[in-house]
């Protein structure tokens, strides 16, 4: 196949500077929807699933599950509808990539939905977007309307005879509605509380029908896999984690923002080369690699390639790729207060350990920060976090426990300092 593909390593965001790209015509001008049309017209669903499996695309919603494999779980022989759900609940502090993907490339997302929709035989995709994302919701709805009017969505998708509709559903402000079964409950009009599993959504998902839930970004990669081929896709990123991802860098860096880089890019490279390093000549203290639920890494451990297979060795995970950078002025107990407050607030409250543990962790953190802690409290923190882990309906309790465990693992001395001094050694930076 003599021809060489250009080595584009920012394929998702390549056209994001172009405001016209959000319109149907602007998107089409860049060749948009051609890939979907070709795939739907020329390939069988089995072939599409096969390609996706070969691509090794990992879910970008946090758990990193193989997307092609997940779509292959959808039963194809059942009567009645099946659904896709696009998870646009993006509520993990430190994460803002899906927002940009929706605001700047709504049609890229829709095209990314159409291909697996065809492959799984889904009649409808529910696009569940967090309630606070009013602007992205408006942009998406406009894109959906335009696509429907333009024959991209509807009863005859791109003239291929495939029928598909995309329904935008706005959430009401709960982090737990990003957990896929909490999302499904909310989608059905119920209180957003994760379901017991099994049954998994592929068996019994939205409205009791086979359903697959994927992250916004996961879908966005799909057209590119088909446009440029599996080999090209696998040439970017790492063996286990191919492709690029959007790293959202926030906190104490010169240039906070979103960086599309290959998976496996080293964390220190992201922070120092791309985001410009820590401002004011201050020293870096720690970084959270992928949204607040991922265990943080101290300064000495930042040479890790940002892909799950490497982060795992450091006791952390890629999560949503939201990198939060903290410099030497940051009080780690305060970090603990802020994070545990978030989880306390957002726990859905079904499981005993999570409901009670999140509150307890937060109270302990606050007391230590305010100078009322004891050494024994540090053990209690660790112990409570241990009791929350791995025993609940969903992974939220783990997400609440891990950051605390990591803080104690790497910054125990700073906690002890608070205890001994009976106050926080840092100047108060904000009200708790």
């Amino acid at each position, binding site marked *: 196949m003599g021809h060489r593909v250009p080595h584009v390593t920012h394929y998702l965001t390549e056209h994001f500077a172009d405001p016209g790209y959000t319109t149907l015509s602007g998107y089409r001008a860049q060749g948009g929807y051609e890939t979907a049309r070709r795939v739907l017209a020329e390939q069988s669903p089995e072939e599409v699933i096969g390609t996706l499996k070969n691509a090794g695309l990992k879910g970008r919603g946090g758990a990193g599950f193989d997307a092609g494999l997940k779509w292959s779980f959808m039963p194809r022989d059942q009567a009645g509808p099946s659904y896709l759900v696009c998870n646009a609940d993006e509520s993990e502090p430190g994460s803002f990539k899906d927002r940009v993907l929706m605001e700047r490339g709504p049609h890229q997302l829709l095209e990314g939905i159409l291909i697996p929709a065809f492959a799984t035989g889904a009649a409808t995709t529910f696009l569940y977007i967090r309630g606070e994302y009013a602007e992205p919701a408006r942009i998406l709805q406009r894109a959906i309307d335009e696509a429907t009017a333009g024959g991209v969505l509807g009863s005859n998708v791109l003239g291929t005879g495939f029928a598909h509709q995309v329904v935008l559903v706005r959430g009401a402000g709960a982090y737990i509605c990003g957990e896929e079964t909490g999302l499904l409950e909310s989608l059905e009009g119920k209180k957003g509380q994760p379901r017991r599993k099994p049954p998994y959504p592929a068996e019994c998902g939205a409205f009791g029908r086979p359903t697959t839930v994927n992250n916004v970004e996961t879908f966005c990669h799909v057209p590119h896999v088909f446009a440029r081929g599996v080999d090209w896709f696998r040439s970017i990123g790492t063996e286990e984690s191919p492709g690029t991802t959007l790293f959202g860098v926030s906190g104490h860096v010169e240039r906070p923002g979103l960086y599309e880089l290959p998976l496996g890019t080293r964390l220190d490279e992201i922070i120092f080369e791309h985001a410009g390093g820590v401002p004011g000549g201050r020293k870096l203290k720690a970084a959270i690699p992928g949204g607040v639920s991922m265990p943080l890494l101290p300064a000495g451990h930042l040479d890790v390639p940002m892909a799950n297979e490497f982060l795992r060795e450091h006791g952390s995970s890629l999560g949503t790729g939201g990198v939060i950078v903290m410099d030497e002025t940051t009080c780690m107990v305060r970090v603990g207060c802020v994070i545990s407050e978030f989880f306390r607030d957002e726990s859905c409250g079904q499981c005993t*350990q999570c409901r009670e543990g*999140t509150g307890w962790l937060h109270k302990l953190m606050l*007391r230590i920060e305010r100078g009322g802690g004891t050494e024994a409290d540090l053990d209690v923190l660790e112990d409570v976090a241990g009791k929350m882990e791995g*025993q609940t309906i969903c992974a939220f309790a783990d997400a609440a426990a891990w950051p605390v465990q990591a803080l104690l693992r790497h910054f125990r001395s700073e906690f002890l300092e608070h205890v001994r001094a009976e106050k926080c050694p840092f100047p108060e930076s904000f009200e708790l």
Partner: protein
Amino acid sequence: MLRITVDGTAYEVEEGLTLLQALDDLGVLMKGVDIPHYCWHPKLSIDGSCRMCQVEVEGVPKLQIACDTPVRDGMVVHTGNERVRKAREGVMELMLVNHPLDCPICDQAGECKLQDYAFDYGQMHTRTREPRRALKKRVDLGATIVFDQERCILCRRCVRFCREIPGTSELAITQRGDRSTVETFPGKPLENDYSMNVADICPVGALTTRDFRFKVRVWFLEEVPGICTGCSRGCNVHVGVADDQVRRYTPRRNDEVNDTWLCDYGRMTYQEIGAPDRISEPAVRGDAGQLVGTTLEQAVECAAQLMRTAVEKEGPGVVAALASAHATNEDLAALRGLLAALGSETHGVPIVTGPADALLIRPEKAANAEGARVAGFGEPGLLLDKIRGGGVRVLIVLGHDIIHEQFLGSPEALAALDGVILLDTHRSRLEQVAHVVIPARHLAEKGGTVTNFEGRVQAVPAALEPAFEAVAEAQVLARIASALDLSISDESERKRETD
């Protein structure tokens, strides 16, 4: 059938069940195999939220919740090893973080699962120095139930009950995280025919019935099996007795009859037992036309005399009997025996009817309607006609259902009779026309058998002695028979011996 091994013991279980369900069906759950559980209830959907029921399943890396783990052939389960105990202790400790631990003043103390398991798995005091959640201690969820928010462990049994059993869905968990609490929707109180069951299934002292709250500490309560007399379902109850009084009915599980539920109306019928309007003393109508208190012997003699006179004057056909469907099979058998010995065939059982539902409540508002039919008692229509036509001179009345508007309407219809012999538990206008009044025992005071609408004969023992002197109707009838020199085959006694 599948074979599973739990703590070294092999069991045959049915496919498709969860581990807890299977063990419960075998009758070993908490009776040999201890898997503490809060949110799981055998008659409600699986919740899987309390996380207390964790067990170790060989070959599965994580501990599994037994309430939501399907049985598999060859499954090997450990319910009490160190790992499992530690996990339970962890759950217990977290569960108690915000619990007020006000056991000394809690009504549930003594039948509280939190207290029970805390003894087994808890430090009763957690290491928390943090202030506990302060919430409302007394919320009226409806007319029957009071809610203590602080004690609630959010197991959602009450919520699922309302949604799944009466189907009324009044309760919901509002808020989230550790602010979660049980609430009703504004203007929609907990108000269904089964509302009080939520207090039974609440594993802690968060829900109490307004009726029983603070009445007696449960350890002073003797619980005796009984049958609700509210309708022909014959729901199985525990008769809770303290200080020679019935203090409550609570459901006694019988999957064939009432699962683990009672309707509110039936539950409250216990109040009839200690009611102030019980007939507590035999009486006969004196020369001045007033009822005058007397001894049982004299009342029996007087009744016998009325019957004797009538039979001598006009033949045996003029003695008749009307029995309530509240009477036990034994009482009814004695009544039939007496009539047969006299040579009378005139009798009937009026059965009061009312609203019914698809869950438990039956239209026939007496425990033994079916028993009466089986014993050969028919509708009272013919008998009433005969009374109105003057064909009856002496009437034995067992129970006051007869003056329900459906039947006699008012007691005046009996005024022309030569003798009305009333054996009854409660005072009524029938006393105005009765010549002899003899106190009767409530089912809970005499025991016996009643037959429910499906033909199920249910036997219960006496739960307590009446507060006054009274003998069971069957024995009163036997004494009347013997005063008349009649012998009635006392089926009731024989029946009781064979049970």
